[in-house]
């Protein structure tokens, strides 16, 4: 079982080169893991790209504390885009699509009870999945999730509620 991810806000540093490096070293693993839990087949690539985009927009951040939500939001969006792409590839050229070894192994290595949950989570619509991962892996509050994803609080609550209801149905858990 992995240690709980840190809930600490991004370091209060300006995005100078040193600040960028500190931010990268502090949060790259969690951003990569976020992409992994969202189903990206190459979480390393998603996380790398999220940091590149942060670097590109470093002058537009409202504050240094905005960096981490930006990274998370970008990782969510990039993961969604990647999943959409994979859906089309699987549909139109199934012979060309090969599951990413890491993502397949990470699910395969789980105990059966956990594997069922992770597989069911992967079947949810992207927004529901993102809300549940941010809520139950990162332990963000609904308000923090709304700010991170830049969506209304009501949308967070409804997506979370629907996602949990779907999981309950799939897993046979009494809601």
């Amino acid at each position: 079982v992995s240690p709980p991810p840190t809930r600490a806000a991004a370091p209060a540093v300006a995005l100078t080169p040193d600040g960028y490096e500190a931010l990268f070293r502090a949060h790259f693993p969690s951003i990569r893991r976020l992409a992994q839990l969202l189903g990206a087949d190459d979480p390393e690539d998603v996380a790398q790209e999220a940091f590149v985009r942060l670097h590109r927009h470093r002058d537009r951040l409202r504050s240094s504390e905005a960096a981490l939500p930006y990274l998370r939001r970008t990782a969510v969006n990039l993961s969604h885009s990647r999943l959409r792409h994979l859906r089309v590839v699987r549909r139109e050229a199934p012979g060309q699509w090969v599951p990413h070894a890491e993502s397949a192994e990470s699910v395969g290595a789980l105990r059966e009870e956990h594997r069922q949950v992770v597989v069911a989570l992967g079947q949810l619509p992207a927004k529901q999945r993102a809300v549940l991962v941010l809520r139950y892996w990162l332990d963000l509050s609904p308000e923090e999730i709304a700010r991170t994803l830049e969506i209304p609080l009501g949308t967070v609550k409804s997506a979370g509620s629907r996602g949990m209801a779907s999981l309950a149905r799939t897993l046979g858990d009494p809601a």
Partner: protein
Amino acid sequence: MSNDLEDRLRTALHAVPEPPPSGDAYARNLQRLQQRRRRTARAGVALAAAAALVGVLVVPGLDLGRDDTLGPAAPSAEDRRPDGEVVETLAVLGRGFDLIWLEDRRDYRLCASQPPYACSWLPLLEELSSTAVAVPVDDGAVLFVGRLGNPELVTEDVLVTGQPGAEPLRADVEFVDSRVLGYRLAVFEVPTLEPAYCAAFQGGGSFGITTVNGAEDVC
């Protein structure tokens, strides 16, 4: 909702093995940043200088001799770029951009036509049946992809608005056919970076276009 289920979900998420560490990620990030910086600095694309955007709408279903496979045929040797990327040009879009296929990644990109070929990162043609996406290129250009569904359309049918419901912008729409893909691409520029764009088609159908990290379903 059952607390048991919440606990079960929380436990399962933390039980997923982390991806194995793969060397110095920060060094790779610096390499990626430097690569982007070089490409942006040397791109010299007129479109970028004008801070314009490029939109591309995909018109599927045309019989242009498309292969049955999603990916095009293997590129020839002369398609190998100086940086080692093996590519095939699927469509010359004009305005300084091409639609290309990256053989090694088996993915699509929107790239500047001139060296050093500034490219978008996201794959491009995944959105044919759903809401369009805007794919930013390093210099601020954006590729729009969406399903049109009506091969009889003419360029005048494509309307572009700065915001949902706004008056159409004056967009100079051109159609470009890609025989490799069997798609017709509608290419247009819009003058300024807005939070969102919509492309609508006379005779029915519309889809939203979002900019960098923008919300979905804007139209």
